[in-house]
């Protein structure tokens, strides 16, 4: 139908014509849009990934810079106004000798106001890993080396927790993505072979999946992680961890793909393509794959949070990434000690993004699954 005829039709008819000519992708999107919780989750997930991309830009101070003098500083807000009107500032730190332990403790000093500026200069980093820059979203103007913006406080070594959390978000989310990508590759390949050929190949792959899934994951990961050489660099460990967590992750995706293959193989439209004389490759890629791509996407969005939790728990147990790498699990490692935690409860704040992103991914995955298959 040409554009002119559509324009000439009344509203109802236009909507109908739009519906009739909508691709499956559009229909899925329209169904997805009605799922409010999933839409909110989509925004949350998008925000998290933009944090991951702009982690260094959002960080207020060098996440690796230690300074014993500013350890365990409680979270400080940014004061927006002072006597002279709008003037965002934080307080400087003042060393106070504890009269009983004689230890020097640094506490905020309301007398020293340090102005906070947008797009301020700070430590230098590579944006997108390419451009060297030292511009950060927030920064201090002036101030001593010990001064800084401590939105979420600092840890024992005096590193700013907020900045570390930004960088950790990048590591944790990207490790989830990499793990899922690897699982997807394995899952689609093995699940496809399993569903397509059937017979003993199918039986073999399915039994392997069952065996893999029956092994308790934590001991399995512990064993594998313990086998990683101590001498490996941060990057090598990072890659090895993605392989380890996707070792289990692919099984679920393989099952989804196999199931879709099995059910689609019996669908009349696939039989019709076969009867028309279409080749095996054409049947798979033109007729079958588009029909279950949306299911795979939904399965992926449900697999991602599992990957993120895996990495977090491994690192928390000290078996995953190792410092100086920063991930949510490593941040939470600091919160393992109850004595430290009672003095500095803000160290637990790394649990908040973990919870948020996993909830968001689960809702998103549910919404996608419902939208992809309104009957399933």
């Amino acid at each position, binding site marked *: 139908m040409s554009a002119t005829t559509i324009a000439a039709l009344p509203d109802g008819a236009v909507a109908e014509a739009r519906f009739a000519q909508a691709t499956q992708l559009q229909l899925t999107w329209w169904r997805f849009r009605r799922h409010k919780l999933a839409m909110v989750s989509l925004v949350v997930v998008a925000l998290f990934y933009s944090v991951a991309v702009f982690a260094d830009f959002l960080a207020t101070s060098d996440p690796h810079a230690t300074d014993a003098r500013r350890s365990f500083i409680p979270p400080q807000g940014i004061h927006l106004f002072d006597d002279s009107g709008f003037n965002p500032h934080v307080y400087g730190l003042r060393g106070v000798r504890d009269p009983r332990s004689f230890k020097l403790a640094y506490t905020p000093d309301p007398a020293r106001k340090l102005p906070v500026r947008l797009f301020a200069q700070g430590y230098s980093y590579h944006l997108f890993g390419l451009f060297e820059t030292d511009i950060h979203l927030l920064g201090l103007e002036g101030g001593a080396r010990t001064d800084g913006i401590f939105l979420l406080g600092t840890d024992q070594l005096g590193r700013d927790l907020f900045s570390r959390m930004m960088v950790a978000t990048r590591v944790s989310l990207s490790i989830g993505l990499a793990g899922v990508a690897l699982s997807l590759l394995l899952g689609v390949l093995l699940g496809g072979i399993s569903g397509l050929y059937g017979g003993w190949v199918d039986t073999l792959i399915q039994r392997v999946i069952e065996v893999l899934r029956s092994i308790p994951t934590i001991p399995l990961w512990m064993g594998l992680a313990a086998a990683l050489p101590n001498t490996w660099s941060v990057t090598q460990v990072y890659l090895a961890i993605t392989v380890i967590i996707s070792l289990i992750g692919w099984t679920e995706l393989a099952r989804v793909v196999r199931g879709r293959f099995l059910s689609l193989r019996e669908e*009349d439209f696939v039989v019709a393509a076969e009867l028309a004389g279409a080749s095996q490759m054409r049947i798979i890629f033109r007729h079958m794959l588009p029909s279950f791509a949306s299911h795979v996407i939904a399965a992926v969005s449900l697999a991602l949070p599992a990957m993120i939790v895996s990495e977090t728990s491994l690192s928390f147990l000290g078996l995953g990434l190792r410092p100086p790498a920063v991930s949510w699990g490593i941040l939470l490692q600091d919160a393992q000690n109850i004595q430290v935690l009672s003095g500095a409860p803000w160290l637990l704040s790394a649990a908040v993004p973990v919870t948020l992103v996993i909830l968001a991914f689960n809702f998103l995955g549910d919404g996608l699954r419902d939208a992809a298959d309104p009957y399933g």
Partner: protein
Amino acid sequence: MNVLEVEDLRKHFPIRAGLLRREVGRVRAVDGVSFQIAAGETLALVGESGCGKTTVSRCILRAQRATSGAIRFAPEAGRVVDLASLPKRELRPLRRHMQMIFQDPYSSLNPRMMVGDIIAEPLKVNGVPAAERQARVLELLELVQMPPGARTRFPHAFSGGQRQRIGIARALALNPRLVVADEPVSALDVSVQAQIINLLLDLQDRLGLSMLFVAHDLSVVRHVSDRVAVMYVGRIVEVAPTDALYRTPRHPYTETLLAAVPAPDPARRGRRIAVTGEVADPAHPPPGCAFHPRCPHAVERCRTERPELTEAGAGRWVSCHRAAELDLMGVR
């Protein structure tokens, strides 16, 4: 000249059990079926659910491979191939000569392809150039009485009857010699059934189609078919020209099927013949005549001896020991 000759077709599905997947039994879905379809003729294959009629149609199109028997098909005049034994590689170029109309108009159209692409797909995979495809799609849409605008729409925009028309257009795209229609109207409303039947009749006239028309009841096939073959538990029990079969059925099973045909005129409503019992299990068919547990006319012989399909008048074949003596009731 016959387009299709099926001889002693058998399709057995093994029942496997245990760890070693040993065969513990066989479902004799199709157990010795023979029939012919002449050029331009429509043969209806009728029977209850599970009698093997769909398996027959799938074996003919080689969507499934027959266990034994011969399926002689003439893709062109003067050339005959046996579809039952043909290697897969040689089968593909023959596919264009035989096409299928599916039962379920919802699952037979790919929801992700536009109607124009669905109809053009057989043309595309058989190497028809793009310019010709376009013209042919329009021609086919007109043939099945669909507007040309349907081309750019997706299947979800159409009703069951319209979808079935699209399915028919796809089946006819390559001008096949043989069309197998597997219950093409069973999933549709009665009013829409009539439209599709009329369309098929029209196409028979215009294109001289040879057709195997599979149906589960006798009410729809009367207008479409030249001859009717009635199947019961994997075997043909009666074959006859349509009118003869409707007027004077020879097999008790045909009689019960005919009794189930709704009569539009209450005054003409005949005596009701209720079929008792369930259709026999093809994995464990009863001894003798498979219909005897449900047959009101069964005698001792029916329980022990299986009747053969024997000639009973002009073009009529029936497999019943008592065919000659029974006076069965048909419909006018």
